[in-house]
C-alpha cells in the first residue's frame, strides 16, 4: 500500500491518540492499536471492500460543527490527520446490531456468525427472512484473495439481487482454479467446505474437485497438481521436493542431521 509519499497522521480513537500512515485503512490502524472493532470480511492481504459492514465507526473531523458526525465502515475509510473516531457509541452499536441481524438472517448455518450474534445479544428469532442452511454471507473475501493474491481469478460474484451468489462463473467448474484452498482458509464463516478425501480435493461451495498428488514415499497428500505447479514457479522448488510430503521431507532432514552429527 505504501508508495513512499504517504505522510504520518495522528487520529484520536476512543480518546486515545493513534499514529498511522495517512491514507491507510482506518480499521487496520485501530486493530494495530488493540482497539476491538468487529469485522468479518477484512483481510490485510487484499484491498478493503466494506462488505460485511460490521466495522462501523463514528467519525468526526477537525473543523466540523459540533454534533456533526458520520457513520462509516472503518476498513475502507482512509486515515486522515485530525480524525476523531468513536468505535462503541450508542449510535454505532445500534446500527451494528441491525447489520448483525441481517448477516445472521443471510447465513444462519455458520457457527461463527451464530456465536458472534449471540455475543451481541441477538437470538435466532430475527425479524428478517432467514435463508436456512446458508453459511455464506457474500462478503467476497474468497474471490478477492483468489484474484489479488493467488492470481487465479477462479471465483467471482455472479447473479443479481436476491439471486446473487459467489462462486465460479456460470456456475461451472473453473479451469483456472488451482485448488490451493486459500478461499477456504480466509473464509470468515466456514462456507467453502474444502475436504481432502479419496484422492480428491473437493470444494462443496464451488462444486469442484481436483485430483491430489500424493507423496511418493508414504502416500500422504502433497497438494493438487496445479497448486504444485504454481508453487514451483513461485518458489523455484525442485521436483524432488515437490514429489514428497512435508512429513517425509522432515524425516529426510532429520537423517541428514543424524549423518552429519550436528547442524
Amino acid at each position, binding site marked *: 500500500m505504501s508508495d513512499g509519499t504517504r505522510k504520518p497522521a495522528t487520529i484520536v480513537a476512543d480518546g486515545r491518540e493513534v499514529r498511522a500512515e495517512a491514507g491507510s485503512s482506518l480499521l487496520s490502524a485501530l*486493530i494495530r492499536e488493540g482497539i476491538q472493532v468487529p469485522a468479518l470480511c477484512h*483481510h*490485510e*492481504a487484499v484491498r478493503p471492500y466494506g462488505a460485511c459492514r460490521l466495522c462501523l465507526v463514528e467519525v468526526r473531523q477537525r473543523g466540523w460543527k459540533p454534533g456533526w458526525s458520520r457513520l462509516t465502515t472503518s476498513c475502507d475509510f482512509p486515515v486522515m490527520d485530525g480524525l476523531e473516531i468513536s468505535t462503541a457509541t450508542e449510535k454505532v452499536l445500534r446500527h451494528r446490531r441491525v447489520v448483525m441481524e441481517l448477516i445472521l438472517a443471510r447465513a444462519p448455518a455458520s457457527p461463527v456468525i451464530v456465536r458472534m450474534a449471540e455475543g451481541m445479544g441477538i437470538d435466532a428469532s430475527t425479524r428478517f427472512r432467514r435463508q436456512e442452511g446458508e453459511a455464506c454471507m457474500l462478503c467476497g473475501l474468497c474471490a478477492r*484473495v483468489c484474484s489479488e*493474491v*493467488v*492470481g487465479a481469478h477462479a471465483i467471482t460474484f455472479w447473479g443479481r439481487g436476491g439471486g446473487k451468489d459467489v462462486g465460479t462463473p456460470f456456475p461451472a467448474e473453473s479451469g483456472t482454479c488451482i485448488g*490451493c*484452498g*486459500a478461499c*477456504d*482458509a*480466509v473464509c470468515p464463516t466456514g462456507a467453502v467446505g474444502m475436504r481432502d478425501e479419496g484422492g480428491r480435493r473437493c470444494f462443496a461451495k464451488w462444486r469442484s474437485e481436483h485430483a491430489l498428488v500424493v507423496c511418493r514415499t508414504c502416500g500422504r497428500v*502433497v*497438494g493438487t497438481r496445479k*497448486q*504444485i505447479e*504454481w*508453487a*514451483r514457479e*513461485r*518458489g*523455484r*522448488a525442485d521436483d524432488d*521436493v*515437490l514429489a514428497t*510430503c*512435508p*512429513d*517425509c*521431507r*522432515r*524425516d529426510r*532432514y*532429520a*537423517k541428514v*542431521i*543424524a*549423518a*552429519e*552429527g*550436528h*547442524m
Partner: protein
Amino acid sequence: MSGVIKVRAERCLACNRCRLACFVEHSLSKTLIGAIAEEPRPWAGVQVRRAGVLAVPTSCRQCEAAVCAAACPTGAMHRDAAGEPVVVEKRLCVGCAACVMVCPYGVPRMAAGMAHILKCDQCVERVRQGEEPACVAACPTGCLTFVPLEARCEGRDAPSGASSILSLMARIEDTRGGRCE
C-alpha cells in the same frame, strides 16, 4: 541478538521436552495445563524425528535465501532484518500453502482450525529479551544450543558466498570440540 539453534544429534534422548516447551511457549496461557485446554490447540514448531538409531530434534533452519519467503505472494512469510528468523505475519497470511509446497525441510504447516501457516519463529520475542529459545532452554542434555551469530563468526572472514546459515556454520569451527571443517 540473533543466532542459530545448533543440534548435536548424538545427545538427543527423544524426551520431547523441546516440543513441550515450544507448545507451551506458543500458547496464550504459557502454562502446560492452560495450553492443553486452549482452542485452537497451540502448535509446536520443533519435532523430534527418528533417523536410524538416533532421534533428532528438527525445526526451521532459517535459510538465508528462504524459499518459503520467496514463494509467499503476500509477504506474510518474511524476515525483519538479515540474521533474524523467518516469521509469519498472521494478518497477511491467506493460507495458500505455497510455502508448505516449496520448503525442502517440511517446516511450514497449515494446522487444522487455523487460518494461517505455522512455523518455528525461533522464539523471536524471547531472544529479543536476551533469553534462549524455549526448546533450547528446556533441553536437558545440551543437544540443542543457541549460538549467537557474532560468536560463531569471530575471527573468520565475512561469509560472502554463504547461501544459508547452514553453509555459514559448516565453515566455522565447532567451539565445543565437535567436527571442524
